[in-house]
């Protein structure tokens, strides 16, 4: 016997998908570009910066800010779609 997922279950699943996508970018720019692949990226230049170094000290931080604002926008839309918004 199977039941179709409730509205709440679908909302929660979409929320988790959003988190997974945004957090993979969070991981990629800091742990990926800033630490694991820093030497490879340092062979590429961005103006006076080596790219890996730029990600470690500048780029990752800009990306973090952007990710939160994308999250805010995305979740507000999701809340409205499922009518769980506060007003």
């Amino acid at each position: 016997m199977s039941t179709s997922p409730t509205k709440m279950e679908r909302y929660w699943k979409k929320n988790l998908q959003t988190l997974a996508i945004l957090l993979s970018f969070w991981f990629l720019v800091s742990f990926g570009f800033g630490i694991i692949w820093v030497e490879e990226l340092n062979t590429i230049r961005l103006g006076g910066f080596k790219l890996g170094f730029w990600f470690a000290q500048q780029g990752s931080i800009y990306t973090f800010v952007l990710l939160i604002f994308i999250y805010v926008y995305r979740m507000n839309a999701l809340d409205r779609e499922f009518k769980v918004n506060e007003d």
Partner: protein
Amino acid sequence: MDLLTWTYLLVGVTFALYIGIAIWSRAGSTQEFYVAGGGVSPLANGLATAADWMSAASFMSMAGIISFSGYDGSVYLMGWTGGYVLLALLLAPYLRKFGKFTVPDFVGDRFYSNKARVVAVICALFISFTYVAGQMRGVGIVFSRYLELPIEWGVVIGMAIVFFYAVLGGMKGITYTQVAQYCVLIFAYLVPAIFISMQLTGNPIPQLGLGGEVADGVPLLDKLDGILADLGFEEYTAGKKSIPDLFMITLALMVGTAGLPHVIVRFFTVPKVRDARLSAGYALAFIAILYTAAPAVAAFGIYNTIQSTSEKSINDLPPWVTNWQQTNLIGIEDKNGDGKIQYLADPAANELRIDKDIMVLASPEIAALPNWVVGLVAAGAMAAALSTAAGLLLVISTSISRDLFKTFQPGISDKKELRIARIAAAGAVLLAGYFGINPPGFVAEVVAFAFGLAASSFFPVILLGIFSTRINKEGAIAGMIAGLVFTVSYISYFKFISPELNTAAHWWWGISPEGIGSLGMALNFVVCYGVSYLTPAPPKEVQQLIQEIRIPKGAGKAIDH
């Protein structure tokens, strides 16, 4: 006007401002004392969170740490900002929907256990006390360096100010003072950074100046790599630490940041779940302004320092070097007797000792900026230290009045609870002041502790408490204790018991004590899961509570349920 007058004037004006705000916004109820009545706008909360978060260490020491560690310093930049992504996406909105006042509140209710609540209170108190002692010390240091007062007097004045607005104003007073303090500190940080960036690279934006070119057309960072390599140091853009260690330290700092109670509690003060998400975004944007300028200040600072001292005659040094020699932040010893300074990686031949705080504190003088800028930096450092101290003191007083008194004496009136909260805040100020005047010898080490503990205790259980309906009280308590004991033992062993063994060769899997919180967190997750699945699922009401906090709809103001 001379330097001392400017400093007294600017510090005095900002203090008067903070006290004025505290009187205007003092708290009248426990709700206002704990969460500012839950009516703070997301923008104001973002500003307050940024000031709350950026401590004396962020303002005075971080740039200097990066100056001397180059690429390795990136762990602090990424760690202390990346945590906000975790906080915004994984914790803040749900904790806001939960709608009470403290982190132990959530742990106690979600895990239906006063034992879990007490473990959480102990963690919160420990983390906050280690942190606040450092802030008080910071206030004392600024007073002694700029205002020529003894450190003790500086601490006492700092205590009096914090006492006034934290004890009277509670969260409401603190929030609006922190908004003002953010403005003071960011202005004070950026003015010298912009001037130095212009002088060195011709670009007024420090973040771009870092990638700019110095006078001879060579990019600053390449020039710095070359200079440091010639002196025997690591290249600036290369690091000494291993990749696993960098990875673990960054992770521990990120997760620790997301688990710090004085930061989390700020998100209880906004009216809606939507506001909690948005204000985390604002907070990180405001923090990022300083955190992306810091690596520029760091590179400019070390470049300028080497240029104006290395191979220069000892009798012909710029005035700022001799000024800061008097405060013992710069030390010169002509070991080979050639009358010149050699700055070298080899400690036996190196003749110049520079304290890391110089990079920010002396930056206006290095750039030959007017005296008012020096006074401004002093006021900014003070703002950074006071705002963080106030946020921490609030966590301490709330933990005592609410999580301990109220839990075990549920009948006490609002008025009495407020009085206990104020007495606790006053007691905490005195204790913090004592540690500021008589710092325990391990102040620097305890920072690793605070983040390690937040990472290994709070973060996993809060996260699982929201994202899993199966985690129960047995799992949470076992997980917190396992994470804590493991992390505390590892750090204590290498920092206090056998500091002589504190090298990569002896560390487990090459992970330094600074990064071990990551492993403690992993252990907490594993234990928490394992124990939960071996014991009964949480009761129905708790399952209901979890479903409720997952949707924004129906969030009232933070109230006493």
